């Protein structure tokens, strides 16, 4: 055959449609709730309806008498078979029982549970449990909680401090043994202008389309536990379930079937997962629990909820000299798996894309009587971006500088990479000015400014926002994760030449089945349809960490690429033997394996595969078969970046904000599938804009979640947005051979400050310099109205 003009298209970089979608859109996916195991029983929780109190009695008698109810457990019963839940961060943590013992600390905490023959009955029986409480005062404001009044939530944590003041940045020794304030003090002493602002990055409810669900199946005859869960990381689940059940990891199989979104909230290993496993083991029955939406609002971790006191010191020419960021994180009632670590990422990324010579951040984490927080899309980095970008915007406004130019003046320059920040990060690569210029061009910034000014001349309240972001992704070296920071991939060429590969990155919407197949199809020059990517089952996928922190492509993709390379080399050796050529001359092309310069010798890919499995003769020194694996651990994280620009109009009479334009330039390094990348950015933008404009978890003073349903908690709809205008710059990372950085969270970073800055710009005529999110119409109306800006 000819070696020119390949028939098979090269797929890396192509907009291949997600192969996952046809089954998911048609309802052919299998989620936890779809699973049925013979003998399966249903578990339902009784949850407390007060935010803080001592349990005085639990009467389970009515529930236990109901026909079909097989078991009822209180917190004390569960405590006998399940230790308090562990966390994954090195911070001190109070005991956290999966089902509350004696004291409840947030509305929605489990206090008892029932096991019944069907789900409806289980729910009825849970309702029939009567719990009485001696109420304790609740505290929902973290700054109030820090006073230790009116209540202390955990007795060994005075003033409700989960993490007492932790300093970081310039002059702070890595082991905290010494703190030298001179550089930071000098920066502020030398400053010609100081911006100071308290900002609230408020609490959000993650709201994955699929709530959580668990099915735990202890098989007494085999002494094995299989646990299906809607999780982002089945391998971590396996590890934890084994440990908490006193089993070896060889006895546990964890399976994440289709997972309908997670947004970080399905990283945590939850009470419900542990409880289902220990109850299954005790009763010897398969036990299923599926979260309903009302439960999900209170029982699945929330995100964000950090107050930042920001001080920015600068010269009049816009050069930033120093930054102080005092952070107070409201983590809710308990530490979960990664809770305490999330705000540390805000510290790590405090300087954003700027070369700031002196920075001091401090972090205090506070318990309150609210649902615990943990990772939520961006997890700590959107907070950092929001604080530093809003401060930069305020600086530009104070100095009457263009918001783009004040940023340009402070950017880390391309020749400074790898760039060691004052916060201890080493940024891998970047060309921020290029992305800024691309965004200014794509948005026609000067035209937008003229358009805004024209609208203002007509009396309209129109504003422009610009924000830049950098994110830490692709976690990362094992030093940065307690689970290890690698990912695993295995590639097997089947006897018929088809390819089955496994990845430890268990997706929940990332499209790995598509992008990873694109990579392998190219690597072996076989049709896309000949490659299957398996994931999510620890019985099939040997090892893995999971999917979070925008790591799938950069870390798991690379692991598969490396595993594929090993298999390809072995296949080339078989081909060399079969085709009587040198291994170095073997080429993979158009579904054929051939010899360079001798096209007539080429054999179908499948023929080489068949030979490898029935190797007669077996080439000397070779083993049969074509399967190999790789663990890939990058030596650093990746740092994608980008620039978001928005135009927003506020209705003068009502205060309603309307987003008119959103232009985003994102740089995630090399892109395997731009279509999927755009989808990820769309989703991130929706959630980032959602936080700025319509999403907010609101509690009342008693610790009741007022936004506990979609009637009061707004999820963004397509009709809330203009058409997003996306483009990319490409700055590859040196930390993996694909040059890919990660993009899953990026959309949430730039969009949020960009929107708020646009609102501030729109209302700047009223003397406004900052507005806390979310942009409630009434809040904006009051600013306008109090300045006589309404029309009527």
């Amino acid at each position, binding site marked *: 055959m000819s070696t020119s003009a390949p028939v098979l298209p090269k797929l890396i970089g192509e907009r291949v449609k997600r192969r996952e979608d046809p089954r998911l859109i048609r309802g052919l996916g299998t989620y936890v709730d779809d699973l049925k195991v013979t003998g399966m029983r249903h578990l339902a929780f009784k949850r407390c309806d007060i935010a803080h109190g001592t349990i005085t009695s639990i009467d389970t008698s009515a529930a236990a008498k109901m026909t079909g109810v097989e078991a009822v457990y209180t917190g004390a019963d569960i405590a006998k078979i399940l230790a308090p839940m562990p966390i994954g961060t090195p911070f001190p943590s109070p005991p956290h029982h999966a089902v509350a013992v004696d004291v409840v600390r947030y509305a929605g905490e489990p206090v008892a549970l029932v096991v019944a023959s069907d*789900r*409806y009955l289980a*729910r*009825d029986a849970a*309702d029939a449990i009567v719990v009485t409480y001696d109420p304790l005062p609740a505290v929902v404001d973290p700054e109030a909680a820090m006073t230790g009044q009116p209540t202390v939530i955990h007795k060994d944590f005075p003033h409700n401090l989960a993490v007492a003041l932790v300093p970081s940045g310039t002059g702070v020794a890595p082991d905290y043994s010494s703190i030298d304030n001179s550089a930071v003090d000098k920066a502020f002493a030398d400053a010609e202008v100081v911006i100071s602002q308290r900002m609230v990055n408020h609490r959000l409810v993650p709201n994955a389309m699929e709530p959580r669900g668990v099915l735990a199946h202890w098989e007494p005859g085999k002494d094995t536990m299989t646990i299906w869960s809607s999780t982002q990381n089945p391998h971590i689940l396996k590890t934890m379930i084994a440990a908490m059940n006193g089993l070896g990891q060889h006895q546990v199989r964890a399976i994440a079937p289709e997972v309908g979104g997670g947004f970080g909230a399905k990283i945590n290993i939850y009470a419900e997962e542990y409880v289902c496993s220990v109850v299954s083991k005790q009763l010897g029955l398969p036990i299923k629990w599926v979260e*309903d*939406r*009302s*439960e999900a609002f209170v029982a699945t971790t929330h995100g964000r909820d950090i107050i930042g006191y920001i001080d920015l010191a600068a010269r009049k020419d816009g050069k930033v000299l120093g930054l102080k960021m005092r952070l107070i994180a409201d983590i809710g009632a308990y530490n979960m798996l990664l809770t305490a670590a999330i705000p540390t990422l805000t510290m790590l990324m405090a300087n954003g894309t700027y070369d700031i010579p002196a920075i001091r951040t401090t972090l205090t984490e506070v318990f309150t009587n609210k649902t615990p927080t943990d990772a939520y899309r961006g997890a700590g980095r959107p907070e950092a971006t929001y604080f530093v970008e809003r401060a930069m915007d305020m600086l530009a406004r104070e100095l009457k500088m263009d918001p783009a130019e004040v940023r340009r003046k402070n950017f880390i320059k391309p020749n400074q990479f790898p760039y060691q920040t004052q916060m201890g990060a080493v940024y891998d690569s970047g060309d921020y000015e290029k992305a800024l210029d691309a965004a200014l061009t794509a948005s026609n910034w000067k035209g937008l400014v003229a358009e805004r000014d024209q609208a203002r001349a007509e009396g309209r309240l129109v504003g422009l926002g610009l924000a830049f972001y950098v994110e830490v992704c692709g976690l990362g070296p094992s030093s940065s994760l307690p689970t290890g920071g690698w990912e695993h991939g295995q590639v097997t060429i089947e006897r018929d030449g088809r390819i089955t590969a496994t990845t430890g990155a268990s997706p929940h919407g990332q499209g790995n089945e598509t992008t990873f197949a694109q990579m392998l199809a190219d690597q072996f020059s076989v049709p896309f349809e000949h490659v299957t990517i398996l994931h999510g089952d620890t019985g099939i996928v040997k090892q893995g960490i999971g999917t979070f922190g925008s790591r799938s492509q950069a870390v798991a993709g690379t692991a598969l690429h490396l595993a594929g390379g090993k298999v390809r080399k072995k296949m080339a050796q078989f081909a060399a033997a079969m085709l009587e050529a040198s291994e170095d001359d073997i080429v993979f092309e158009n579904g054929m394996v051939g010899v360079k310069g001798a096209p007539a010798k080429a054999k179908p890919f499948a023929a080489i595969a068949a030979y490898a499995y029935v190797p007669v003769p077996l080439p000397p020194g070779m083993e049969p078969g074509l399967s190999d694996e790789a663990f890939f651990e990058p030596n650093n994280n990746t740092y994608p970046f980008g620039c978001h620009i928005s135009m927003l109009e506020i209705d003068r*009479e*009502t205060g*309603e904000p309307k987003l008119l334009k959103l232009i985003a330039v994102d740089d995630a390094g090399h892109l395997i599938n731009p279509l999927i990348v755009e989808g990820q950015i769309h989703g991130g933008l929706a959630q980032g804009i959602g936080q700025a*404009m*319509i999403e907010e978890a*609101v509690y009342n003073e008693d610790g009741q979640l*007022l*936004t506990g*349903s*979609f*009637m*009061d*908690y*707004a*999820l963004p*709809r397509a009709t809330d947005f203009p058409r997003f205008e996306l483009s990319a710059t490409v700055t590859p990372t040196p930390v993996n051979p694909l040059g890919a950085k990660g993009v899953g969270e990026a959309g949430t970073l730039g969009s949020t400050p960009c929107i708020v800055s646009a609102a501030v710009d729109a209302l700047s005529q009223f003397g406004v310099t900052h507005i806390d999110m979310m942009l*409630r*119409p*009434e809040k904006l*109306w*009051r600013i306008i*109205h109090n300045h006589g800006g309404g029309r*009527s």
Partner: protein
Amino acid sequence: MIPVAFEYQRATSVDDAIAKLAASGGGKFIAGGHSLVPLMKLRLSEPAQLIDIARIPGLSGIRASGGRIAIGATTTHYEIAASPLLRDQCPMMAEAATEIGDPQVRNRGTIGGSIAHADPAADFPAVVLALDADIVLKGPTGARTVKASAFFRGFYDVDLGAGELITAIQFAPVKSAGYAKLRQRASHYAVVGVAAALEVSGGVIRSARVGLTGATTHAVRLTSLEAALAGKRADAVAAACAGAANDVADVNADLHASADYRKAMIPVFARRAVERALAR
């Protein structure tokens, strides 16, 4: 999100529905279910029986006769929004329907259900008030007709007797009518919604009827505003509407809007509704 157990029956006619409900002991009618089912899932409503009226022949549809329009109780919001008859003769009704919830809600929810449930922030109550519509009811003791202005009595309180159901909404179509609302961002219910139906000749508003929803315990007519609008030309509408909230007492307050803000929005949306009406 899991209701208590209930029985379900499908009615074949209005009389059958009435008989089945009477026999049920604690049953409820269900059509689109978009008000009732969420309450059942939250266990705030626990009917022992549901009598489904959604497929009763003849209970749905939009018909014109004798200068009046009748909308069957089980007509969906989508059918109202898409009706060429309404778009032509009474565009406010179609316009209000497009403002309800989202496409899923509009495809299932019905006008009869919306009016019978009478959520204080629902859109249709304001519209039927402005149209001075008749609510046609049937129950164990026969049929009767109630003016919309008498039907909405208080907080989730309507003039609907035990075992009665709404069969139709009837009104004389008004072309010069408009609906304007401030949307609650999560539910898309009205924070404030105003419907205005005008009689206009020679560029002068001869008479007006205005319905308000979202702001008070139940939808009400703004009679002072109606009087203020009479005799006005377009250029005097804004001034007339400035006092739209003057006789509205006890304005609702919730997470989404304070009473002050709601009250301030009444003149704004009254003026917008009237301007829309005048533009037709």
